[in-house]
């Protein structure tokens, strides 16, 4: 291995003499998402959060296509609120460009009002003292939202009149 060979972008010679080069892998496919996810992701662009309901009354958000335990096909729809409560959270101290926010934020599981399951997303808070389990949060819609999970820019705390975040 000569130094000239290690001249490309990101190329390097390791201490033990081995040649290393970057491999940036992506799967840039177009995919169809089917009637259930299609309706959900399109609804988000119209600022509606849709859910599927099983025979036992469980409301799934994001919608499930089938009940995981019974196999029941789920195609009864309801809309749920765009507000809910934090079921769990963990801190993202060093976000990167692929994540919903470019400053530290909390990953959250949010159970929207009317739903029985929780959805994963980001909560825009400045530090760990500003987030707690059970706090009220609402959807912040993306500007010019296109269908997809990124139509939700993130969640934000619901301010209670006369006080800080609930």
């Amino acid at each position, binding site marked *: 291995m000569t130094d000239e060979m290690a001249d490309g972008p990101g190329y390097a010679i390791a201490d033990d003499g081995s040649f290393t080069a970057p*491999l940036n892998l992506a799967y840039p496919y177009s995919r169809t998402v089917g009637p259930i996810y299609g309706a959900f*992701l399109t609804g988000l662009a119209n600022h509606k959060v849709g859910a599927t309901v099983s025979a036992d009354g469980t409301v799934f958000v994001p919608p499930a296509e089938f009940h995981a335990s019974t196999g029941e096909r789920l195609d009864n729809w309801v809309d749920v609120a765009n507000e809910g409560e934090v079921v769990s959270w*963990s801190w993202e101290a060093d976000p990167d460009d692929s994540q919903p926010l470019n400053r530290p934020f909390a990953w959250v599981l949010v159970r929207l009002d009317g739903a029985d399951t929780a959805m994963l997303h980001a909560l825009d808070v400045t530090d760990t003292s500003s987030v707690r389990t059970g706090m009220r949060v609402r959807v912040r819609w993306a500007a010019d939202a296109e269908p997809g999970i990124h139509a939700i820019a993130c969640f934000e705390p619901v301010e209670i009149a006369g006080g800080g975040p609930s």
Partner: protein
Amino acid sequence: MREVAVVSTAHSAVAATTETPIETLIPVIDAALVAAGLERRQVDFWCHGSCDYLVGQPFSFVSAVDALGAWPPIVESHVEMDGAWALYEAWLKIQTGEADTAVIFGNGKSSVANMFRVMALQLDPYVEAPLGPDQIALAGLQARVALDAGVITERDMAEVAARSRRDAVGNPAALVSGEVSVDDLLAGDKVRDPLRHHDIPVMGDGVTAVVIAADDAARSLTARPAWIRAIDHRIDAQRIGGRDLIGVPSAVAAAARCGLGAGRIDVAEIHAPFTHEELLVTRALGLDAGATRINPSGGALVSNVLMAAGLARIARAAESILDGSADRVLGHATQGPCLQQNLVCVMEGACWVPCVVPSSVSARPTTRVAGQTCPSPVWCGRLPIGRLRMRA
């Protein structure tokens, strides 16, 4: 059912290697075969567990056949899973009667990318994965649910880390080890609240290989095979917001189907890369930490070789049968986000079947009498044969 046992194991793990996966595989597979006294041509079935996402190349697993030697033709298979699931397939293959011996191996090269991000690509591809969380974020969500519910404490988690590092002393496959106080660990920052550094696994590059064999083949290969008495795997729903993150229902179901509660477990090797996962799985399996030694190897927390760490748990548990230090053990493996899939493997040292000891094994009884305790604890453990199932 055919009686199938683990007869030998081998491991390697380092923080980072520049070897190709094939170069890493060959010596470990050789070591497992040498320990079993088996030659490559005597292996009826090869089964491999790995993940192409780690290497970044579709069908990269096919090249692993170069480490086996494919001429004369061999019978081999691959699962896009931890090697523990390859062991399950090999066990099934032997049950069909098409093989008497099998080599199972799992390998992973975790050092080539941020595998915490790569593994999170297992999430739902439309509503979760596009948000870009990593495994640490997801683990933190699960840990906090359990912490909030009072099922575990941060001190419990630190005690798992301290015990794992202490037990890892002397284990050449451990990437971190040593004495550390729980209070010192708890004084550390929450680098990814609620998780501290010690709650997060140390990633490694390496291999685990296991040789299993059926019936008399197993008896001829080792003095005290680790007989697989039960093996089962179950799966929970994919999305983490829609399942019981504390109860881990698939682990409960797998344990029930393995009859885990039917007797004492001497050693349990739990595949728990994160500290809270060990606590949740121990709870789901109904293990009594007072009666059962948990993760005496140090576990995946101190050496997380992706796609091998689950198979390594079965191997480590089996080793305590092979060396005579335990009679009934458990190996557990998990895959998927937040303990989504769980495999339980129960192994025992005791022979169930009165057997003729091969003449090549000297100084051991040549026959045993039904109703009597086996005279040789080295050979078959301590259960009276008369209680046990007779050979059909």
